[in-house]
């Protein structure tokens, strides 16, 4: 029996880059204008989406209880202003580090009307 030793996040990032992102890049479209949102259920999804260019606060993590977290918690360094506005963060080195980005919680998940409002806001 053959096993493919491919990590999920590497596979997804490669797929997004080669089959989705590249056609837009070839046409000169800025990466920030390509992605609107990313929905996944593991931190590995968040890692892959972020590497592909989706802003962290446009990534949404759903758990087994159908609760959805927006990855909009900013990473604050010592001495940094705690009131810094929502912004994209630098790429993290390991998928598990994206646990710290779980921010706004939508308790009822897809049924939460605030989720659509949140996504559509500028």
């Amino acid at each position, binding site marked *: 029996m053959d096993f493919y030793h491919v990590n999920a996040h590497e596979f997804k990032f490669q797929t997004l880059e080669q089959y989705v992102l590249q056609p837009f890049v070839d*046409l000169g479209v800025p990466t920030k204008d390509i992605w609107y949102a990313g929905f996944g259920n593991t931190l590995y999804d968040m890692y892959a989406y972020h590497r592909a260019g989706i802003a962290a606060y446009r990534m949404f993590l759903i758990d087994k209880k159908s609760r959805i977290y927006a990855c909009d918690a900013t990473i604050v360094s010592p001495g940094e202003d705690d009131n810094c506005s929502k912004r994209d963060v630098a790429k993290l080195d390991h998928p598990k580090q994206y646990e710290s980005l779980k921010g706004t919680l939508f308790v*009822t998940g897809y049924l939460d009307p605030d989720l659509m409002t949140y996504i559509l806001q500028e």
Partner: protein
Amino acid sequence: MISGCTAYDLILVDGRGREAHPDDDSNTTVFSMGACMFRFGSYTSSSDDDRRMMMTIPPPRYTVYLVVHDRRTGDTLRFPISAHNTLQQQQPTTTGDSSLLSQPQPHDPAALQQLVEALTWSSPDRTVDGPPYPANFVLVSSTEHGETILGMAPMRIFVVLHSTSLAIVDVDGTITTSTLSGFWNTAVRQDYSIRHCHAGVVPFLHQLVHRPTGTNASSSTTPTIQCIYLTNRPITYVDATRSLLNELREDIYTLPKGPLLGFTGNLAGVFQVGLSCHDVYAVDTWRVHTDKGALLLDY
């Protein structure tokens, strides 16, 4: 014929009308497309006589073609796919040049333009509401006696505008309620009922793409959104996954149409990938073990 011929969908980006940049070499590129993903299962001859016969015949040349229906003329167009999974002209100007195989070949621009014209000539104002265009990857064997079609892998081509924004949606665990059980119930048992999915996922995605305009101040600046479904499922389950995405219903809503992209490995590779992610959440109640080479699941 080869069994197990499957392919993921293609995304073709229409760059007409985008703003020109003086220093941007991509101004000459009007259309662009992702690489082709297909799989043709292993061919097995039907008898020992066939195998002996095949050994005495000069080896055939195998070519994969992208075959589409030209909506203008009603003809069937076929574009050869290079060794780098890119689209080439229908009648290549050079043949037998093995040096080309070692060089990455982008999609041929003329072939892309011809493909777009053949698919969309009747719908110049296409939007994300427009239907995806059916096509096939066809594996052809060519000998001195003629051509033989060995396999066909149906797929769809999605033409999106360069100004379209993309929403990536994972399938198992994001649309379905669980990774392994979601895969088992929807892909293997082919149970497409909503009970295996998160409540509200279908109306949410439907309304995200087909949201009404003019009802709020930000709607005029919200771009057109195209959903792209990304899955860990192996390519052999692409038809079952497409069926799930097409047939899933919740209330009056259906999932928005979008290309399906996924894993190019096998089922064992899927579980290898899935199990590597389980240190993040509690381990599913599935137990995976092997028995004489077979992959077994206990729930």
